């Protein structure tokens, strides 16, 4: 099913928790330079798709292709090396680490030092480079000035920005954003929309989001999940006018708006 410019393709993905089928033969394709929306009611299986892609839940069946090649389902620590970064539904920062350190954790794939070079004190240069990368990622999301504060002292919108910086610092080719607009005000959402549009020049994005303004504004295509199955896919316009989607998720108000 994957097209020529596919960067990520999931075929027939099924996941179950005990007797409960969380995903049933889900097919998703992300193309280069595209922002893909994954929407649906609570419990539809959106985050489960992300968790399967990240190796957090093992799929019952299904295949994964990255950059046109069929690959095994990754383990979480392999994501960065495969060019995938993810933000979490909450914020998922390390509260006691500084903002810079939080972002440096996301830059592990660039680290050259190992146990022995650290023990011999030879990792200083490496440290400086990782810190530089972290600082530049923080500046990209406009929180460069708080890099030495511990993460638990930040405002909620700033923690969201730091979480995005930690994902961007690994220079991913695929970015998975799990409810990035959750809890943000109108101004921050506007900034987020701009950032996502800007990021897609180099990074393909899959976004799980309930905020329909964000989804309809930034996504090139949308998949709609309901009870673990894809019930519709297409452009924002097509999805907004799809009867099944309106009934299952968007409601009649959205159609009236369109």
């Amino acid at each position: 099913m994957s097209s020529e410019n596919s960067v990520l393709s999931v075929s027939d993905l099924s996941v179950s928790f005990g007797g409960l089928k969380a995903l049933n033969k889900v097919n998703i394709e992300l193309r280069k330079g595209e922002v893909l929306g994954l929407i649906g009611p609570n419990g539809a299986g959106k985050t489960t798709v992300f968790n399967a892609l990240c190796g957090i839940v093992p799929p019952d069946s299904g295949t994964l292709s990255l950059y046109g090649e069929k690959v095994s389902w990754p383990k979480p620590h392999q994501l960065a090396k495969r060019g995938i970064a993810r933000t979490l539904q909450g914020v998922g920062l390390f509260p006691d680490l500084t903002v810079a350190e939080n972002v440096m954790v996301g830059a592990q794939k660039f680290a050259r030092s190992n146990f022995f070079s650290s023990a011999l004190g030879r990792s200083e240069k490496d440290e400086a480079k990782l810190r530089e990368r972290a600082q530049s990622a923080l500046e990209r999301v406009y929180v460069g000035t708080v890099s030495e504060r511990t993460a638990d002292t930040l405002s909620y919108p700033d923690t969201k920005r730091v979480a995005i910086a930690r994902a961007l610092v690994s220079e991913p080719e695929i970015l998975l954003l799990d409810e990035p607009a959750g809890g943000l005000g109108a101004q921050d959402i506007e900034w987020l929309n701009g950032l996502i549009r800007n990021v897609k020049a180099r990074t393909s994005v899959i976004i799980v989001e309930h905020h329909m303004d964000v989804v309809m504004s930034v996504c090139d295509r949308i998949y709609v999940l309901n009870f673990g199955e894809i019930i519709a896919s297409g452009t924002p316009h097509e999805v907004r006018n799809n009867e099944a989607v309106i009934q299952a998720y968007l409601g009649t108000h959205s159609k009236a708006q369109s």
Partner: protein
Amino acid sequence: MQKILDTLLIGISQGSIYALMSLALVLVWRSTRVVNFAQAGQAVLSTYVGFEIASRTGNFWISLIFAVIAGALIGAAVDVLLMRVLFKHATSGPALVVAPVIATLGLLGLIRSIVGLVWGGEYRSIPAPASKDGFTFGTTTIPFSPLNSVIVAAVALVLIAISILFTRTNLGLALRASAYAPEIARLAGVRTSQTRTIGWAIAGGVGGVAGMLITSYNFLSPYSLDLLLVFGFIAAVVGGLESMVGAVVGAMILGIGLTFILNYVNTSLTFVSGFVVLIIVLLVKPDGLIGSRKGRRA
């Protein structure tokens, strides 16, 4: 006045011994979020390895190197063979907190039994790296020996090295991230299993240093480090459990405090006083003396 000074010096040397054990305990806690009661057993086993080398070479420093290597390997083995298996099954809820602690208690008993079977229960000794006789100034001999100086220097060195590792290296960052939130660290690209094993190995190595230095001061038996585990643990909690500096400060407070009680109040109160200090600190400052967020960093 002389008695006060003497008591203070004995307290410092006692505190530095507690500090070595509390540093090892804090190290495992900070790297893996496990309170490792098997630390005393691991340290005893690696010290027996050092004892074997010392009895062949007669050289403390060579045997120390072997004890540290043995301690690191034992630490790594505890993680790979026990903790990883345990964490595979205990993934959430009370089991996640309780199971590792109970497992380390069981392991302590197991290691002591194995050591007793192999080496027997009799007291052994190893050559000391420096004289145990107190320094003499004119006609006065103080209760602080070159060996005490070596132990204090070892505490300082371990403290500095571990602090640099945690705050200035990428490995230290990975260790902290893995300990705080392994799932998030994994998603960010940290190989948390490997990192935790390294944490256990480093703590095991520090335990080897503790065991060798304490044994050169006292004697070695399967149970010789048990009391030290108790006081090292109290010192670690008093210091906030998170902080290397706190571990040393807690150990010094405990060492000096208990020595003053021993010399000025009543010998039989020494042991119980340690627990009284622990309860008072937990009641007044549950985070420990250096348990503030900023204090946790070094």
